[in-house]
C-alpha cells in the first residue's frame, strides 16, 4: 500500500480566531445616516476573525483532506464521476457569464439566452424529446418538476383521479421521494430474476389510478431494461406517463434515446453525464425534457427566438405553465460548462464516451468475476452498461467481512469507495461505475486491489475491519453523531461548557 491522505490537525475556524483580525477590505466607509431604528439593530455577531493568509491556509488544508475525481479513481456507482475538463470552468468564470444579472434588459443578455437556446436543442436531440426546460437545480429537483408536470397533464385531460406513481424496487431513493413530495402515493414493483422490471407485476400494478412510472434505463444494476417497449405500452395503455430518470444516461449516449424508447418526460444530470463538477454535493443542474403534449406545462419562462427581430427572449406568456419552480432561470454557471463540454465532444465524442464507459464497466465485470468473493446476483449472461453491481455476500459468509468493510479498505489504497448497499435488492452490494475517463491500468489496479482485499479478508479480517487508516481520519462514531447531534460550533461550545 502506498497511499496516505493529508492529515492535518486542523482546528475549527472559530478556534483560530483572534480579536481584531480581518481578511477583507471595503471600498469605503459608511457615510451618513442609515435610517434604521436602534431596536432593529443587532447587538452581537460572533463570526471568526482572521487575516486572508490564515483563511487561505485553513481552507487549503481542508481541501487537502478531501478526495475528488482529480485525486484519483472514483467509481461511485450511479454518480458518473468522470473527469471535468478545466476549460469549462474557465468559461463559466468569465465576467460575461458570472457578472450578468437575471433582471438585466434583454438586449444586454443576448449571449446568455443564445447559449441556453442552443443547449436546449442539444439536449432535446440527445434525449429525443420535443422541448427542454433548463431550470431545475439538480436531479431530484428535475424529478419533482416532472411529477408536477405529470399532474398538470392529467388534470388538463380531466383525469385528475390518477394519484399513484409506480417505481421499481431498484429505483434511486429520490424517485419515490419526489413523487411523494408532489402528492403521489408510491407503488413499488419488484424486479425479476434477470434484474429487470417484472412485466407481469407491472401489469398487475397499473390501473386507472396510475399517473406515471419512474424508470431508470439502464437501471441501477447497470442493466438495460430490454422490455422497455412493452413496459411503455403497459403504462401508456393504462393512461399513465413514462418518466425517465437520467442518472444513467452515460450508458446510452448516441445508442438509443429515451424519447425513442417511449418516455414522455426525461431528466438530465448535467453534473453527471455532461461533466460539470459536483462540488462536494452541488451545484448541479437537472434540466427536464418533454414530448409535445406536455410542452405547454413547462415552468416559465422559456427561451424563444424572434426571427424577425433576430432577438432571443424569455416567454412568460404561457397560460398552461405550472409557473415558477425556483428563482430565475436555472443554474446558468453550470449550463455554460455543460454547453462547452458538448462542443468539446460533439456527436462522435458522445458516442465514444458511452462506448468507452460501457467497455470499462464490462471489463471490470469480466475481470472481477474471476476473483473469488465477488459475484453477480443478476444476469451474468449478457453485457452490463455503464456500471456493474457486485455482491460480496459469499465473502461475508466466509469471513464476516462486509461490503462496507471492503469499500472502506479501498480508501486505504487511494481509491474512492464504490456505492455500497445500493440497490437494496442486492445483498452486500458494491455498485461500480468506472466512467470513460479511466485508463485500463487504473481498472486493472482496481481489480488487483479488490483481490488483495478479498485475500486480506481471509487472512486478517480484524485488520481489514479497522480500515481506513490511510485517510485524513479513521472510522468515525456516526451513530453517536446522529444520537446526540452537534450541528454547529455554538452547540458544541454550549455542550462542552456543561
Amino acid at each position, binding site marked *: 500500500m502506498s497511499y496516505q491522505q493529508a492529515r492535518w490537525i486542523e482546528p475549527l475556524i472559530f478556534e483560530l480566531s483572534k480579536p481584531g483580525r*480581518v481578511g477583507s477590505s471595503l471600498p469605503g466607509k459608511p457615510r451618513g445616516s442609515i*435610517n434604521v431604528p436602534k431596536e432593529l439593530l443587532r447587538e452581537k455577531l460572533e463570526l471568526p476573525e482572521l487575516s486572508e493568509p490564515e483563511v487561505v491556509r485553513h*481552507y487549503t488544508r481542508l481541501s487537502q483532506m478531501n478526495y475528488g475525481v482529480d485525486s484519483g479513481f472514483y467509481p461511485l456507482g450511479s454518480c458518473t464521476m468522470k473527469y471535468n475538463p478545466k476549460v469549462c470552468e474557465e468559461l463559466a468564470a468569465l465576467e460575461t457569464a458570472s457578472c450578468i444579472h437575471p433582471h438585466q434588459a434583454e438586449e444586454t443578455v443576448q449571449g446568455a439566452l443564445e447559449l441556453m437556446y442552443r443547449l436546449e436543442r442539444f439536449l432535446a436531440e440527445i434525449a429525443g424529446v420535443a422541448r427542454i426546460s433548463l431550470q431545475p437545480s439538480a436531479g431530484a429537483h428535475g424529478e419533482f418538476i416532472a411529477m408536477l408536470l405529470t399532474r398538470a397533464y392529467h388534470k388538463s385531460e380531466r383525469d385528475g383521479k390518477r394519484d399513484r406513481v409506480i417505481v421499481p424496487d431498484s429505483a434511486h431513493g429520490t424517485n419515490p421521494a419526489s413523487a411523494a413530495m408532489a402528492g403521489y402515493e408510491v407503488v413499488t414493483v419488484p424486479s425479476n430474476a434477470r434484474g429487470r422490471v417484472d412485466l407481469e407485476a407491472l401489469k398487475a400494478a397499473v390501473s386507472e389510478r396510475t399517473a406515471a412510472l419512474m424508470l431508470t434505463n439502464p437501471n441501477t444494476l447497470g442493466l438495460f431494461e430490454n422490455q422497455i417497449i412493452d413496459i411503455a405500452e403497459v403504462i401508456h395503455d393504462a393512461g399513465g406517463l413514462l418518466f425517465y430518470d437520467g442518472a444513467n444516461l452515460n450508458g446510452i449516449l448516441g445508442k438509443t434515446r429515451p424519447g425513442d424508447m417511449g418516455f414522455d418526460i426525461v431528466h438530465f444530470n448535467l453534473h453527471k453525464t455532461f461533466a460539470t463538477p459536483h462540488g462536494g454535493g452541488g*451545484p448541479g443542474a437537472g434540466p427536464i425534457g418533454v414530448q409535445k403534449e406536455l410542452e405547454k406545462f413547462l415552468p416559465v419562462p422559456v427561451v424563444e427566438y424572434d426571427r424577425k427581430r433576430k432577438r432571443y427572449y424569455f416567454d412568460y406568456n404561457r397560460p398552461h405553465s405550472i409557473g415558477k419552480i425556483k428563482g*430565475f432561470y436555472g443554474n446558468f454557471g453550470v449550463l455554460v460548462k455543460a454547453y462547452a463540454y458538448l*462542443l468539446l465532444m460533439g456527436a462522435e465524442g458522445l458516442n465514444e464516451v458511452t462506448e468507452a464507459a460501457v467497455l470499462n464497466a464490462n471489463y471490470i465485470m469480466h475481470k472481477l468475476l474471476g476473483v473469488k468473493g465477488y459475484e453477480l446476483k443478476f444476469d451474468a449472461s449478457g453485457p452490463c452498461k455503464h456500471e456493474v453491481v457486485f455482491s460480496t455476500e459469499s465473502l461475508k459468509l466466509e469471513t464476516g467481512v462486509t461490503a462496507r468493510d471492503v469499500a472502506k479498505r479501498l480508501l486505504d489504497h487511494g481509491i474512492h469507495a464504490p456505492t455500497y448497499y445500493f440497490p437494496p435488492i442486492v445483498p452486500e452490494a458494491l455498485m461500480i461505475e468506472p466512467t470513460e475517463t479511466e485508463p485500463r491500468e487504473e481498472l486493472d489496479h482496481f481489480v488487483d486491489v479488490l483481490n488483495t482485499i478479498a485475500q486480506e479478508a481471509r487472512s486478517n479480517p480484524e485488520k481489514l475491519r479497522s480500515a481506513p487508516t490511510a485517510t485524513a481520519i479513521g472510522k468515525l462514531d456516526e451513530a453517536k453523531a446522529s444520537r446526540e447531534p452537534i450541528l*454547529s460550533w455554538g452547540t458544541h461550545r454550549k455542550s462542552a461548557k456543561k
Partner: protein
Amino acid sequence: MGHPYIPNTREIREKMLREIGAASIDELFADIPPKIRLKRELKLPPAMPELEVKRHVQAILAKNKPFTQMLSFLGGGVWPHHVPAHVRSLVQRSEFLTSYTPYQPEASQGMLQALFEYQSMIAELVGLEVANSSMYDWATALGEAALMCARVTRRKKFLVPELIGPERFSTLQNYASGPGLEPVKIGYDRTTGQLDLGQLRKELGQAVAGVYIENPSYLGFLETQVDEIAAAAHKAGALFVVGVNPISLGLLKPPGDYGADIVVGEGQPLGNPVSFGGPSLGIFACRGETKLMRQIPGRLIGMTTTLDGGTRGYCMVLQTREQHIRRERATSSICTNEALCAVAAAIYLASLGPRGLNDLAELCASNASYAMKKLNAVKGLKAPIFDAPHFNEFTMNCTDTRISIQKLNAGLLKRNIQGGKLLRTEFPELGETALLCTTELHSREDIDRLANALKELLGGRR
C-alpha cells in the same frame, strides 16, 4: 488517435474487447432492441478542439453586457457584491470542486468540516441553533419551509405577505400543491408597507401551519412589527418563518432573536457570483428542538469523534430523514444541493468577520439612504414609496412624471446605466415603480450619476 478525455485509445479498447470475449463494441449494446437503436449519428456539431470551443463560447458570451461594464442598480433576489479573489481561488481547488457528496467521511473530512463551519456561521448569523448545509435557492427553501411547517403542525394553511417576491410565491405554490397546502396572502399598509396585523390575526387559527415574512421585504423596506407577528403566530400554534438577505444581518437583529422558528434566505451574496441567477445558495435554519430538527430537509453535518473517542471528526447526520434511506417518507427529495456555494459563503464570512460584515451592511444601507434622498429630490420622483426604514433596496415611483419606468430605463441604458427592476407586471397597484439596489459596488458619484441622468431624462421632456 487518442482522445483528450478518454484515455483508452481505440487500439486499447480493441484489446480489451478481445480480452472479455466480445467480437465488437456492438456486442455490448446487443441488449438494446433494434427497434429503438439510434441508427444515425446524433445531430450535434462536430467535436471542436479546446481553443475553438473557448473562442466559440467567448464569442457567444461577448453578446452579454456584464454589470461590471456599466452602472447597474439591480437586486431583487440576487445582489452584486465584490467576491474577494481568494474565495474563488479556494473553492476552485480540485479537491473541493471535483468531489461528490461526502458519503465517505474518512476521505471527505475537508468538505465536511467546511460545511460544518458554514452551518455554524449561518446559525450564528440568523440567531438559530441549526442550519442545514444548503438548499437550491431562497425560493425552494421557502417551499420546503412551508412543507416542514405542515409536517410539524399537521395543518394546511400558510400565510405570506402580499408583497412577497413573486417568483418565490409562484415556487411556493408549486411546492405547496403536493400535500394540498394553501398559501394565503396577508395585505399591507398602503403608507408604510407593513403587514396588516388586523388581517393577520383574523386569518390565524387552528388551520394555520406557518406565518412567513420577508425582512428586508422584497421591496427593500424593513418589517418593524416583527415581535407582534411572532407573538400572534405562536399564540395560534403556528410556526414563524422569516426570509432574509444574509448581508443585512451584519446590521439587523437576527430573526432568531425576535421569535423566528425557521429562517430561509438567499446565500448568493456571501461570496458567490450573480451568474444570471444561478447557481445560488438556499439558506435553511431552524430552532434546535428535536421536533423541528427531525423534520428539517436536506443534508446536515455533525461533529463527532473517531470510534476510539480520540480525535474530533465530522460526518453527515440524521440521514434517516433523507431520500436515500427513507424513500417516499423522506422529509424532502433533495440530494444534490449547493455545497460548493456554501463553502464559498463560509470562506466569505470568515474573511469579513463580524466587523467586516457590519461595515459592509452599513455601507450598503447608507448608499441606499443616500440614493433615496437624491432620487426623491428629483422632481416627479418618489423614493421610497413606503414610509419605513430600508436596508439596501428601495422603490422609486415616477407615476407623476407621466413617463413610464420602461422608458426611463431605456434612456438610462443609452447612458450605460441599468436602472431598477420594473414592478408593474408584478404589482400593478404600485403604478410606475421600480426596485433599485445599492451595494458596496456603488460610490456616491455613481448614485449622483443616476440622479443626474434621471433629471436629464425627465427635464428633457418638459
